[in-house]
């Protein structure tokens, strides 16, 4: 595809339910990032994948949050027992392999707006 695709664009769920958010990165991009943007704030880092493995998951707020990227392409962010405080826009970004001493541009998707009621 032309860019990073995130589905669904909007998700409304009841408190306590389980949700999955999907990210399709740009073809060939080995690095994939998840961010969360709460209302009126800048995005906050959640997790970074290099290939299939989570290279850095230090931003995941608690063990209700989990993400996978089993084939090194599509990634799914999973949230268990959702809480109202999880309501936010979840952003996905992808880039080519950052490399040592170099930096490839990260391209962002339009995000999934999650509302927990």
């Amino acid at each position, binding site marked *: 595809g032309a860019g990073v695709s995130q589905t669904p664009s909007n998700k409304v769920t009841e408190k306590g339910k389980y949700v999955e958010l999907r990210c399709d990165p740009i073809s060939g991009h080995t690095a994939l990032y998840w961010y969360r943007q709460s209302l009126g704030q800048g995005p906050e880092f959640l997790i970074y994948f290099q290939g299939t493995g989570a290279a850095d998951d230090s931003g995941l707020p608690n063990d209700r949050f989990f993400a996978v990227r089993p084939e090194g392409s599509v990634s799914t962010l999973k949230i268990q027992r959702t809480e109202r405080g999880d309501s936010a826009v979840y952003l996905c970004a992808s880039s080519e392999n950052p490399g040592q001493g170099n930096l490839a541009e990260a391209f*962002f998707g339009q995000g999934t707006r999650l509302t927990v009621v």
Partner: protein
Amino acid sequence: AQSVTQLDSQVPVFEEAPVELRCNYSSSVSVYLFWYVQYPNQGLQLLLKYLSGSTLVKGINGFEAEFNKSQTSFHLRKPSVHISDTAEYFCAVSRRTAGNKLTFGGGTRVLVKP
């Protein structure tokens, strides 16, 4: 850890006037610096980035930013804005060893008035 402060949450500006968006950061290690723009109902788009070299960085759509290490600032400027520049602008940093693991500021909403 790094932190980013965008000093203005909103900046109203008239069309064809100049605009400056202020960004200060804090980090104990060397960082890369970025400005992203978010147009209504769209994803974040990279405006420009500072990796090394010349401290004056030119980006897309006529924007430029200057890295000032002593003042730990990376202010964004445009000499003449258009209505289409109405958007939210985010300053971000990353550790040089952390690639695109970005720490963002809270954003500055620019409203260009005719």
